[in-house]
Structure formats: structure tokens, C-alpha cells
């Protein structure tokens, strides 16, 4: 048996192993992998996600067991230090030697650190491994104690901006320093970069262009940067993201050919200058280029394996490599594809620019207007998948190519569905895994796959960058529609219905409990998906609080409080529209003090008390209720807050008493359970201090009454609410709101917020308007009556609990003892917080 050795257990090295394990002739070979890092291969592309939860498991591409199961020897934490290509021997830093028949270099790259004096000071980092991120997080945690701490990222490229977003999210004021006169100089033109800059500045990043750093200052720890133009920038932390350098040191030492500026030279089969030695991934220099993206790296792994295995028809690298990228995570869309910066005279460019909206789109078409050569999208990359497919497959362009970027005029929703049917079978849909439309459709047609999840499971598509998932779901929907099947989003394995069907059936058959519903409509014992979903339906059909069927509620609703990271709970009393009397403030303060709760003003204009033990919740609420408070439902998928601005009560611009109206609305819909949480806002004038357009429903006072906006949200995918009606008077506004909300309660899927609900609604806002205002379905009166029923049925569920000893028993931490939980807290600015994970 021959031995293959892979050096490097990064993304591309792992891909090689994965392909190897599935190769029909794998039995002829033994495979050993050396990795310098401690962990088995992980997903570097989504590295920044680690900042959110420090959960390295989520990034893992495979476990040790995965390797063991496939009989691949994995030796992590072992660096290969010497290589003798003539004798086919390698040696590691532990002194171990091994011979090989084939060798694959997958050593990746390291961040390039320019030779600036002071780069060894503490507080200076790079951004490549989990360990780098741990170091940054630990350092930043210490800095946060320091008021006004600042971070700087050197390098305004793809990675640098991602890093900058991360430090900003860590709560550090962040500067970006770029040597070139614009951001992302390799992917963007001036217009695109300028638009991106404006948006990023809006997010709070400070951008400094054309700056060359001459020194990193500070005594031990970094305190500032010096620039060539004599200026200085104060900073307490620096992340250097100034490009990558291929790790070619091993190859170089052992006489394998490397390029003049680094990188291990590869031919079209990814062979190096040494016999039976291959190179793949970011270490490879192919056609005088290093490719810092996974998709080309995966292609190299495929080609190298195919050559090494002597496949009948060995693959080879394409002449030109697709460098299209869509940036993630930075708070705005940025994408470029194909030839984004063509030489003058070789292409015709069409540019669309909306300065106020921060949108810049450019496409480059061939001089004859027939082919799409490439393009840039900033601020709105909704068209990326479609354009990228047109470019990759060289599809014919419409007679007016500008329609490609202006095309979605009117309809609002993307028409990616129409695009997908035009793609040829050979079109590569998942470029990370190189999977074509033909392959995907094959699985659907053979009935081996029925859903996106199935497609991912049988082909591996979507497991790389994940960018193709929207197309996968379009493919599935289209396939089902083409077969005359209605596309239904079933709840889970226990209920073969959509949420709307289930709701209708429950109403029709007058089912009152989860067990009844399971008996009549479902099967098995249920799960964590259908239990809370049905709880929500019972709440909106029978105005049932979370108490009678506590065991089917999501954890937070079961205990009427939000669980925190140490298993304690938070307490949020309702403060309608944020208006509160001094006495009530004092009452909250007294409770917080008595129970030792960490106290904070929330982003929703109320006060959150954190750190209550389960057994403390009833006594805390007992006191709050005695002081006149009610549950704030901060734990439920239900109405949270109606944010207000002070309005004409005090403000010199106010058009109406927005606080009074906000209170009226919050009181009306308080506790209303819904498919997802609901938030509202009322602003006294178009200056919009209540951010009403960032809410599920928002009212803005104008000269003649109110404008009513719906279906906005903040969160991970922010969306501005759109105008439903206006100007209208307060009474009409409430009626429309009743109808709108009830329609949403009835028809949205579980955990679908209003914005997403509207996005997938056929006919969009026009249809919604026709239902709410013109009553095309003839259900307006019914919706209003139902809503009034829910409003009348409102009870404070915390009051229910404290008045009922049996319900109070739910909050006993242990069945068999009166012990309370033992918890560890650490002090924090005169209060306390849980011990960090």
C-alpha cells in the first residue's frame, strides 16, 4: 500500500481528505495528515462568528472521530520542519520521521506583517486563527474597563473590514487605516469604495485613507501609530490585516521551486517541481497568482487528488479562476465578480448610484453588449447570485443590460426564481463544492432529495461559504411547483401541516390542548419546534397565557423570564412607551437592591434587572406587582415595547402627543402572542426619534394625522418599515393595526418576523394594502373582532402565578430539597455579573 502525506490541516487540506475518503480507489492508499494547529481543521471563512459565542465547536469542519472512522491518521499539533524530496522523507518538530510516496503541501498562508518598528508591542495582533481571536478577545476584555478604549485595523481590504466590524461589535471605537487611496482597492472602483466608506462611517467606523504607517508607538503596550505624513493616531489595540504571505518555507528549504515573490510553483495539475509532490490552497502559486479564497483552493484539492489517483480523465485547473466574492458580516452588502476593474476600452460600464441610500452598482459588459464581464455591488447585493450566474455561464444579456441592475423596479421582491430556470444544466451553483444545477436537479428528480436540507446532505452543496443556499431553495421550490405540488413549509416531523393550516384546524375542531392536537392532528411526542409553535397558536386563538400549558412553552415562557448565560433570569416590567413616574422608578430600584440584581436601561426604553435565581422570580414579581407593574413579556414571542419620542408634549417640533398615542397602543396590544416578537414605535414628527420605521409597526405624526408604516425591524437583517397608509387619524390607525396584526398572527410561519413575512408574501405590500385597507378577502371585520377578543382577554401572567401556589411551585429549583442554586458572580462597576464562560 502506498502512503500519501498531507502537510497542513486547514480548509483546503481537509477538503483533500474529504475527497480522498470518498474516492473509489482510496483502499490502495494510507493517508496521514500533519497539522500545526492544535485543533482539527476548522472553518476559517466564518472565523468572525467566533466572536459571538467563542464556540470553536461550531467552526469545526470535522472531528477526530471523523478522521478515525475513515482510517485517516491525523496528527495535529505537529509541525513538519524538514523535507527531503529525493529520499521522500519528512521530519517533524517532535523529531518523528516518515516516508511518503506522494506528498501534498497544504500549508496555507500567514498574515503579512509589514516591517514597521514596534510591531512586537503588546496589543498588536493578526487575524487568522482561533488563537488569534482568543488573544484579541482577552485583550479587548481588559481594554473595556478603560473608558474610551480604541482599536485600529491596518488594512482596508476584505479581511480588514471584517476585523474592524468585529472590534466595533466588541464595543471598541474603531479606526481603519488603509495605505491605498480607497477601501478594498483590489475589488472596488472609486465610486464603490466611496459608497462603502459612507456606509461604514455611518456604522461608526473611522476611515483613514492614503496613510502609510511608519511606527507603532507605546511603552510596552501600543498607544498610537505614527504616519509618514507626520500625523498620529491614538489606539490601544491594533489588528494588522495587510495581506497574506504563502507558507513556502518548507518547500524553499528543500529546493522545491518557489516564485520570486513567494508561493510554491504549481502546474495545471497542481504538481510542484519535485516528483510526486503537490501543492494546494493558499500556499500555491498558479499562473503567477496566490488565491486567497476557498473555492479555488477546493478546486486545487480536486485536481491534485484526481492527478495523484491517476483518474482515467484527470482534472486540470481552468485557465482563468473565478475570484468573485460576496463580503459577509460588515453591516452592508459588498460583492464583486468577474472582471470588476476592466482596462479602459475593453468594456462598457453601467453604473447606478444612490448616494442617500448608500447603494452603488456597476456592471461591465463586453463592447458589443452581449456578455457580462463582471461587476461591483455595494449597499445592495441582492442581485449578486443572479449576476454571478449570468457571468459564469455567459448567458445572453437582455437588450437593455441596465435592467440587470435596475430590473427589480416595482416588484420589490427579487425574481431570482425566473433566473434560475434559464441556467444551463452545467451551471455551477455551489462553487465551493463544484456542484452543478444538473446534479442538484438530478437528485430532486430521482426523489432522493425533497428539501434544501436533503440537497445539502446528498451533495455537500452549501457547506462551504453557504452563499448558494438561496439558489438551492429556489431550485427546490421551483421543482416542487413544476410538479404541481404546493410548496408548504411543514412545521416538523410531528405535524404534517403548515402553521396556518394547523391554526385553522385547531379553530375548526376547537382543540384546547397540545395533547389533544397531537392526538388528532399529529404523531409521536412532539419536539422543541412544535411545542412552542402550538403554544403560540393557543395564545392567539384563545387568549391563553403561558401558564395553563407551561410545559409546552419555550424555556423562557415556561418561567416567564429570559434565561441568562449562567442559568439565572432577567426581569423586565412593562413601562408602556417608556413613560415612568419617579415613584415607580424608586420601586424598581428598591426591588433591584433588595435582591441584588444587575440593573440596566434596555434598548427598548425600559429597565432590565438581571441575575435573579429561579426561586427568586415569584417574590420579585410579587413586589413589582404591588408597586403597580405588570409583566413586560420580554421573554415571549409577543408584543415587547412601543417606543415613543416625547412628541408635542414637550418637543418644539412635535405634531402630536406621540407618548399618549404610544401608551394607548402598547396598552392595547400588550402581551399579544405572535409568530415572532413584535415591536412598535410612535414618533411625533418626521425627525423620527422613536425609530418607528425600524419596528414591526410604526406611526409617524404628520400635519394631517399619522403615517402608518409596517414590517420593519432592526436586528441582524435590518429593514425599514414601508408605508401602509396615511395620513390617517388615530382611530383609523388602530383599526388598520388590528387588521394588520391579526392577519400576521394568522398567516405567518413560526419565528417569521413581519419583514420576512412581507418579503415572501405574493403581491407584497400592494397585496397587504388590499387586504388591510380595501378588504379584498372580506375578513376585515372578522380580524377586528378577533383582535378585540384578544385585547379583552388580556391578563398579566405574572399576577396569575403569584396568586396561585401551585403555579408558584414551578419555580422551585429542586424537587427534593429547599437548597437554592449556587452561582458565581464577579464584581462589575459597583454591580455584579456572571463569571465568564
Amino acid at each position, binding site marked *: 500500500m502506498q502512503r500519501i502525506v498531507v502537510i497542513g490541516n486547514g480548509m483546503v487540506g481537509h477538503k483533500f481528505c474529504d475527497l480522498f475518503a470518498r474516492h473509489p480507489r482510496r483502499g490502495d492508499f494510507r493517508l496521514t495528515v500533519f497539522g500545526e494547529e492544535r485543533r482539527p481543521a476548522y472553518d476559517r471563512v466564518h472565523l468572525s462568528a467566533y466572536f459571538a*459565542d467563542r*464556540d470553536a*465547536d*461550531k467552526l*469545526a469542519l470535522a*472531528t477526530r472521530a471523523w478522521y478515525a472512522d475513515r482510517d485517516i491518521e491525523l496528527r495535529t499539533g505537529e509541525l513538519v520542519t524538514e523535507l527531503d524530496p529525493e529520499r521522500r522523507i519528512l521530519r517533524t518538530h517532535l523529531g518523528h520521521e516518515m516516508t511518503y510516496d506522494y506528498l501534498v503541501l497544504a500549508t496555507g498562508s500567514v498574515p503579512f506583517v509589514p516591517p514597521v518598528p514596534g510591531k512586537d508591542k503588546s496589543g498588536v495582533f493578526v487575524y487568522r486563527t482561533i488563537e488569534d481571536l482568543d488573544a484579541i478577545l482577552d485583550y479587548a476584555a481588559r481594554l473595556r474597563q478603560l473608558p474610551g478604549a480604541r482599536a485600529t485595523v491596518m488594512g482596508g481590504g476584505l479581511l480588514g473590514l471584517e476585523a474592524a466590524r468585529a472590534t466595533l461589535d466588541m464595543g471598541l471605537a474603531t479606526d481603519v487605516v488603509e495605505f491605498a487611496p480607497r477601501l478594498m482597492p483590489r475589488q472596488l472602483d472609486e465610486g464603490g469604495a466611496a459608497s462603502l466608506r459612507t456606509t461604514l462611517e455611518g456604522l461608526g467606523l473611522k476611515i483613514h485613507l492614503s496613510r502609510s504607517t511608519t511606527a507603532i508607538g507605546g511603552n510596552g503596550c501600543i498607544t498610537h501609530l505614527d504616519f509618514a505624513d507626520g500625523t498620529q493616531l491614538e489606539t490601544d489595540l491594533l489588528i494588522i490585516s495587510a495581506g497574506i504571505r504563502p507558507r513556502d518555507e518548507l518547500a524553499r528549504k528543500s529546493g522545491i521551486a518557489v516564485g520570486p515573490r513567494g508561493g510554491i510553483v504549481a502546474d495545471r495539475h497542481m504538481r510542484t517541481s519535485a516528483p510526486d509532490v503537490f501543492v494546494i490552497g493558499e500556499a500555491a502559486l498558479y499562473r503567477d497568482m496566490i488565491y486567497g479564497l476557498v473555492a479555488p483552493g477546493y478546486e486545487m484539492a480536486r485536481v491534485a487528488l484526481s492527478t495523484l489517483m491517476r483518474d482515467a480523465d484527470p482534472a486540470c485547473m481552468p485557465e482563468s479562476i473565478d475570484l468573485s466574492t460576496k463580503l459577509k458580516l460588515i453591516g452592508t452588502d459588498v460583492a464583486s465578480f468577474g472582471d470588476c476593474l476592466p482596462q479602459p476600452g475593453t468594456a462598457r460600464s453601467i453604473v447606478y448610484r444612490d448616494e442617500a441610500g448608500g447603494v452603488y452598482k456597476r456592471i461591465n459588459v463586453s463592447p458589443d453588449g452581449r456578455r457580462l464581464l463582471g461587476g461591483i455591488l455595494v449597499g445592495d447585493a441582492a442581485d449578486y447570485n443572479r449576476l454571478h450566474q449570468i457571468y459564469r455561464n455567459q448567458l445572453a444579456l437582455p437588450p437593455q443590460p441596465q435592467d440587470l441592475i435596475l430590473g427589480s423596479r416595482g416588484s420589490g421582491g427579487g425574481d431570482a426564481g425566473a433566473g434560475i430556470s434559464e441556467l444551463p444544466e452545467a451551471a455551477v451553483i455551489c462553487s465551493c463544492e463544484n456542484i452543478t444545477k444538473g446534479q442538484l436537479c438530478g437528485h430532486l428528480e430521482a426523489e432522493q432529495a425533497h428539501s434544501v436540507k436533503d440537497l445539502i446532505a446528498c451533495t455537500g452543496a452549501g457547506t462551504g461559504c453557504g452563499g448558494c443556499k438561496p439558489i438551492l431553495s429556489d431550485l427546490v421550490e421551483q421543482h416542487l411547483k413544476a410538479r404541481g405540488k404546493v410548496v408548504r413549509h411543514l412545521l416538523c*416531523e*410531528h405535524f404534517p401541516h403548515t402553521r396556518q393550516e394547523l391554526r385553522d384546524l385547531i379553530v375548526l375542531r376547537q382543540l384546547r390542548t*397540545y*395533547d389533544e392536537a*397531537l392526538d388528532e392532528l399529529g404523531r*409521536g*411526542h*412532539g*419536539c*422543541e*419546534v*412544535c*411545542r*412552542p409553535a402550538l403554544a403560540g397558536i393557543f395564545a392567539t386563538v384563545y387568549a391563553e397565557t403561558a401558564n395553563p400549558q*407551561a*410545559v*409546552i412553552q*419555550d*424555556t*423562557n415562557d*415556561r*418561567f416567564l423570564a429570559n*434565561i441568562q*448565560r*449562567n*442559568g439565572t433570569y432577567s426581569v423586565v416590567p412593562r413601562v408602556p412607551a417608556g413613560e415612568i413616574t419617579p415613584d415607580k422608578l424608586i420601586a424598581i430600584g428598591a426591588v433591584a437592591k433588595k435582591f441584588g440584581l444587575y440593573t440596566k436601561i434596555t434598548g427598548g426604553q425600559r429597565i432590565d434587572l438581571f441575575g435573579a435565581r*429561579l426561586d427568586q422570580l415569584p417574590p420579585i414579581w410579587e413586589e413589582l406587582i404591588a408597586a403597580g407593574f405588570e409583566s413586560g413579556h420580554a421573554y415571549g414571542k409577543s408584543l415587547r415595547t412601543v417606543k415613543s419620542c416625547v412628541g408635542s408634549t414637550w418637543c418644539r417640533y412635535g405634531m402630536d402627543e406621540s407618548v399618549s398615542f404610544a401608551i394607548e397602543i402598547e396598552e392595547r396590544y400588550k402581551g399579544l402572542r405572535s409568530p415572532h416578537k413584535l415591536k412598535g414605535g410612535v414618533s411625533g414628527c418626521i425627525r423620527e426619534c422613536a425609530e418607528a420605521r425600524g419596528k414591526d409597526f410604526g406611526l409617524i405624526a404628520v400635519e394631517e394625522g399619522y403615517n402608518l408604516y409596517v414590517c420593519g425591524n432592526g436586528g441582524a437583517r435590518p429593514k425599514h418599515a414601508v408605508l401602509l397608509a396615511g395620513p390617517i387619524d388615530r382611530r383609523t390607525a388602530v383599526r388598520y393595526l388590528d387588521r394588520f396584526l391579526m392577519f400576521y398572527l394568522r398567516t405567518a410561519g413560526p419565528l417569521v418576523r413581519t419583514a420576512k413575512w412581507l418579503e415572501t408574501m405574493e403581491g407584497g405590500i400592494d397585496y397587504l394594502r388590499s387586504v388591510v385597507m380595501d378588504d379584498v378577502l372580506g375578513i376585515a371585520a372578522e380580524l377586528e373582532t378577533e383582535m378585540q377578543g384578544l385585547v379583552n382577554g388580556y391578563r398579566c401572567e405574572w399576577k396569575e402565578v403569584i396568586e396561585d401556589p401551585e403555579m408558584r411551585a*414551578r419555580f422551585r*429549583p*429542586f*424537587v*427534593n*430539597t429547599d*437548597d437554592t*442554586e449556587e452561582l458565581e458572580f464577579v464584581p462589575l462597576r459597583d454591580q455584579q455579573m456572571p463569571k465568564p*464562560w
Partner: protein
Amino acid sequence: MTAYQTILPEQVTTWFRAGHTHQFPAGAGATVKYGNRQIAVFYFHRNRRWYACQNLCPHKLENVLGRGLIGEQDGIPKVACPLHKRTFSLETGENLNGDCPPVAVYPVRVEGEDVYIGFAD
């Protein structure tokens, strides 16, 4: 974590009385203390089956599993952690939706109206 080890019915040396059946909610979990250890006990009332596992979630080492939602996946009874929704088989303790280490599971015996959990120490 090392304090918790799966116990098979044949390994049980001590049957510890955890409480009265009516102290445990139907279709959910509750927590009992056994010395310094916390054990989550679940009652699946639809088929009258009882399960027990460590209360400590292996993901972030918080004592919370007894407060998770229970359910079933392809016939396997499971609990979903309330913090990040990792799910664990109540038969084997295995993590069903990720690669967390397994939780320890314990045999449960109901005699009359008393609920017992099996330990080997």
C-alpha cells in the same frame, strides 16, 4: 463533568428516592439534587416513560438541562438545552445536533408513587 457517568440498569447499586410522582411535571423536566450532583428527571406522560440525565449541559457547563423542552426525534426521546438548543438523546446521552460530548444518563424506576434514580455509588 467527570462527576457524571452513565449508569446502566445492571450497574445500579443505589436506588435513590428522588420524589413523589406528582412532584414531576407531565411532559417536561424537573431537577433533583443527589449530594453535590444535579440530576434532571423527565416524564414523558404520553407513553409513561421516565428518563434522567445530568443537569449540567456539556456545551457551556451550566446546570440547566432540567429546564429544557423535551420531545422526540425519529423515535429517540430527547431534551433541548434552554441556552443554545443543543439536543441530547435521553436513551444514550448522545448530542443529536452537533458534536458536544454526551451527557450521562441514569436509569429511573417508579414504584407505586415513588420515583427512584439509579446510581453506582
